[in-house]
């Protein structure tokens, strides 16, 4: 029973911590499958979180906040798209720039508008997403093993968490079972062929970038409206880069993205839970090592020691129509 309790506890925080990662990594999946690399996930998430915090406070509505997050994040995506698709600029440079601009301007604007030392005012109940109890959660609690798992692990999360997990099969379906998905993948592998087929490479890529913006916005809104009660300075704290790492780890596949994010979320939950307590067999693990583990794993994967991560072939290369 004690072990079950522990499992539930860790499982719950794993799900909580991996939700924004899943959303951001799926966002990256759409744009990178379309051939536009994006290391600006961090900035878009932060911008979305900020917009969500501001608007949800002013309008006292979580939905308004979510909408604002998506709008801001899509606008940032379009800047990235304009620089890297239309102007054929360096995608990495553009992504870095967006991270900087957002990191700076959220602090300046937040301070100017609310004067609370790098945060938006705490949001009241109505302006946040509430936990949802799935049907029969309480009634089934008595069932051994499965009851508590259903009641405590699966039920009781916010709507955005369910949305994130639902997006995994939806993304898979969009990518592999729709015409849009086929073209999106093609444009990331061989834009020339797509162009020959009479489909606009530019418009396809813009659509990939917009999908990325929407999901990054939701990830941001999750941070400020569900996981916390408002926006705080630099609240993404590297989650955008972890999502990027997860995306590579997952070799650009939707279901693997979810698994990789759950793994990184679990490492995080584990590090928080066992800070400073010695573990059996291994002894005392420095918390810094636990924090660095997702990055180390990604480097090891990139080095091809645990399978090869092959990015979309045309990724990072601006498309130039031949004349």
């Amino acid at each position, binding site marked *: 029973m004690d072990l079950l309790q522990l499992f539930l506890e860790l499982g719950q925080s794993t799900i909580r911590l991996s939700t924004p990662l899943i959303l951001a990594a799926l966002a990256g999946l759409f744009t990178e499958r379309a051939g536009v690399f994006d*290391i600006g996930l961090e900035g878009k998430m932060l911008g979305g979180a900020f917009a969500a915090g501001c608007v949800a406070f002013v309008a006292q509505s979580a939905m308004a906040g979510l909408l604002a997050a998506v709008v801001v994040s899509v606008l940032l995506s379009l*800047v990235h798209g304009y*620089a*890297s698709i239309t*102007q*054929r*600029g*360096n*995608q*990495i*440079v*553009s992504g*870095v*720039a*967006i*991270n*900087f*601009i*957002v*990191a*700076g*301007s959220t*602090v*300046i*604007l937040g*301070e*100017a508008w609310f004067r609370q030392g790098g945060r938006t005012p705490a949001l009241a109940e109505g302006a946040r997403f509430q936990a949802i109890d799935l049907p029969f959660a309480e009634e089934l609690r008595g069932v051994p093993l499965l009851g508590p798992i259903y009641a405590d692990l699966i039920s009781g999360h916010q709507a955005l968490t369910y949305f994130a997990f639902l997006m995994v099969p939806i993304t898979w379906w969009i990518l592999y079972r729709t015409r849009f998905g086929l073209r999106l993948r093609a444009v990331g592998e061989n834009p020339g062929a797509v162009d020959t087929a009479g489909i606009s490479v530019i418009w396809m890529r813009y659509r990939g970038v917009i999908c990325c913006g929407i999901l990054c916005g939701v990830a941001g809104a999750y941070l400020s409206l569900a996981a916390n009660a408002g926006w705080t300075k630099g609240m993404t704290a*590297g989650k955008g*880069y972890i999502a*990027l*790492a997860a995306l*590579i780890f997952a070799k650009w596949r939707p279901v693997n993205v979810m698994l990789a994010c759950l793994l990184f979320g679990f490492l995080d939950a584990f590090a928080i839970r066992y800070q400073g307590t010695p573990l059996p067999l291994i002894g005392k693990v*420095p918390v*810094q*090592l636990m*924090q*660095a583990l997702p*990055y*180390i794993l*990604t*480097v090891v994967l*990139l*080095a*091809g020691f645990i399978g090869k991560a092959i*990015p979309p072939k045309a990724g990072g290369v*601006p498309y*130039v129509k031949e004349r």
Partner: protein
Amino acid sequence: MSVPYVKLPAWVEYGLIPLVNLVVAFAVAGLVVLLVGESPLEAAYHMINGAFGRGEYIGFTLYYATTFIFTGLAVAVAFHAGLFNIGGEGQAYVAGIGVALACLWLDRIMPWYVVFPVAILGAALFGAAWAFIPGWLQAKRGSHIVITTIMFNFIAASLMNYMLNRVMKPLGSMSLETRTFDAGGQLPKLDWLMSIFGLSVGTSPFNVTFLLALAAAFGVWVLIWRTRLGYEMRTMGHSPAAARYAGIKEARIIVITMMISGALAGMMALNPIMGETYRMQLDFVQGAGFVGIAVALMGRSHPAGIIPAAVLFGVLYQGGAEISFEMPSISRDMIVIIQGLVILFAGALEHMFRPAITRAVLAFSGRGRTQAAVKGA
């Protein structure tokens, strides 16, 4: 990188276009100031005054510029070989260990001019070692340098957190830093240099590392444009296929380039550790590795452009401190915005204004009018 349609005169390529990009970046930053409800002109005044108003302020400006020359050169060297080293931050951070070890070992028994070369060597070695791994992984295993260097920034942060928490902190101390160095670990200020111009350094930490930075800039110029290695690096940066065809060993160039880049980024650590605080503190790099990206883009990866670009960012840092002091609603984060905008306009959108400028320049010079008409530029 796309090729310009028409070859432009050097003053347009290296002067006018970067200047236009810079002006646009500042204009957008001015919009943010307006959005906050303050006057951009007043902010500009405080920035200029805060950066140049007194000898002490100039000292601070040049102190920051010293740091940015190193990180800017680091990014530029990698750029020339077609590599995007985004890991200057982590390389500089880890290089701090090399500086700190040299100082902790020698500061009580040797004068600064003996400790300094050892510390330079330490910084360069640790910085190069931290850049070697991503370089090697790219050369031998084909992992993408951008992603690995980002990951290495995070790993460096965790590593340094551990080092300062457990290893390098003196016994019984609570704050995350090494002990304060004795005289041997403290670099002299450049007051004699400033007094030539009738200025006083005041409390600013403007120190001899500045001269090392200038020497490094000259060294990079020699390396890139006057040596065989530099030629091979540039060839590879232009066309990896041509380089391979010419018999240049790609893997070797990648690894060497990354190690030089890491060593340059690492030397940045000398400036704050030996020149200002006389101890290694948590987070002493403070984003300088990322500023290097903006500096290299602004300076067009040429040392002669990087030095003024580094001074410009020195002005931003020092002037930005003054703005946040005089205008409380604008914090130092304004610098981060401007930095981002410079990276965006000078880097990702560098070709946005090129067609218009090309047309204007050609129309003005008259000589190229027919050429422009033919090319439709």
